[in-house]
């Protein structure tokens, strides 16, 4: 029997190179989708905590407390199985034949996004609080409307203060995205599991996956550093 070397196994023509690369793309897509869903939730969460009424504030507080205490894997289970159950209930209600599956990508990115949203909320809240009151007063004195004030003053300044925190959330989201492999979504981790299982070389493949995650996080960390420098070019050091 001919033994394939590890290099042959990860070749792009016949080996696992191409599926793994697709897995990397899928991981990045999942993480980006989760990050933006989380950011969307986070903006509302921060708004609720900063200037919402009693009810909005309590809901936001409960959300961040609960989501920061519960393991992400449990949330992923909830969305995947809960989504499937909800879809089949809906199918039964609408009298659709056959079994219906909840799209894995949607379930995964929603689960990641909802977990990340709790962290986003705190990041945006802290960043808004770091905006100097005088700048908002100056905008008021210039006669800016609420919307102009938000667009020209509050948003850019909040974003500048939030960027380091957002970078941390991105790194967490990227690593969390590996967890959705537990419900069978074919991203980098799942693809690695498949390759490791069928070749009998788990160590090599998991090492490769670790290197890929390290590469993604290092490159994105570098990009974040660049954008941080760009956003704070008006700040004296």
């Amino acid at each position, binding site marked *: 029997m001919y033994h394939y070397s590890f290099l042959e196994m990860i070749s792009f023509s016949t080996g696992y190179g191409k599926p793994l690369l697709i897995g990397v793309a899928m991981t990045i897509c999942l993480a980006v989708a989760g990050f933006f869903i989380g950011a969307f939730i986070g903006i509302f969460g921060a708004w609720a905590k900063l200037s919402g009424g009693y009810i909005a504030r309590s809901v936001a507080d409960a959300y961040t407390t*609960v989501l920061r205490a519960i393991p992400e*894997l449990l*949330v992923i*289970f909830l969305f*995947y199985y809960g989504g499937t159950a909800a879809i089949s209930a809906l199918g039964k209600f609408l009298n659709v034949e056959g079994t219906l599956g909840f799209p894995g990508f949607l379930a995964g990115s929603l689960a990641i996004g909802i977990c990340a949203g709790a962290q986003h909320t705190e990041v945006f809240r802290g960043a808004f609080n770091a905006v100097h009151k005088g700048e908002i007063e100056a905008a008021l004195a210039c006669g800016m409307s609420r919307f102009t004030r938000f667009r020209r003053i509050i948003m850019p300044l909040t974003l500048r203060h939030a960027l380091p925190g957002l970078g941390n959330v991105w790194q967490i989201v990227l690593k969390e995205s590996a967890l959705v492999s537990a419900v069978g979504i074919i991203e980098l981790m799942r693809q690695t599991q498949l390759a*490791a299982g069928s070749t009998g070389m788990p160590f090599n493949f998991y090492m490769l996956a670790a290197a890929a995650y390290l590469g993604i996080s290092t490159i994105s960390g570098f990009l974040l550093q660049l954008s941080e420098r760009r956003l704070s070019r008006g700040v004296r050091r």
Partner: protein
Amino acid sequence: MDTSFTYETFVRLLGALPLTLQLAAIGISIGAFFAMILALMRVSGYAILDWPARAYVFVFRGTPLLVQIFLIYYGLGQFMLIKKSFLWPFLREPYWCAILALVMNTAAYSSEIFRGGLLSVPHGQVEAARACGMSRLMIFRRITLPLAIRQALPAYSNEMISMIKATSLASTVTIMEITGVAGSIISETFRAIEVFVIAGAIYLAINFVLTRILGAMEYWLSPHLRQPPSAILSSSAA
């Protein structure tokens, strides 16, 4: 909501609680030990100690815990050398693999927290200790370490909560802790929401108790930030 199902699920999940706590407790305590060594390597000022610690932290913080668990559980079995060594009876067990991964992971994160604590110790305090004639070891034991721990505690409590959450990943290598049991009940019954609520409540309770204990510890460790009792205030005024 079906009460008998809820009760049954609650009892089953509660049965898995000791395993979750065990994984977390062992992981945190051994992890803290290695984290302290790594932090001391980082602040030692010797490049030969600093760089390996730096590389370790970079690798373990840059990769998902799941990859680390799988690398240890599935990956190490690939080598005959390990399979024949005395370590194999341990590395064959998913329990020890999960603990090893948790320890190595938390050591990387905690070492950065401890390093921050060690660096925050005011230089004047160390100088004062030196002026009192304390030896290096005694300065570390009496001055640097207590001050560093006090400074690092708030950040370290976050890391402890992350560790409680991280134990859920042990379920991916067949360990039936809370998330593992919850996952199997969900896939048996497809009643995701009820099981999720119960399991979530258990995790919430663990973390609630943990944060209270750590908060009490923080209070106990920082008497200098508290208002002095009114008796002292009135007697000094008199």
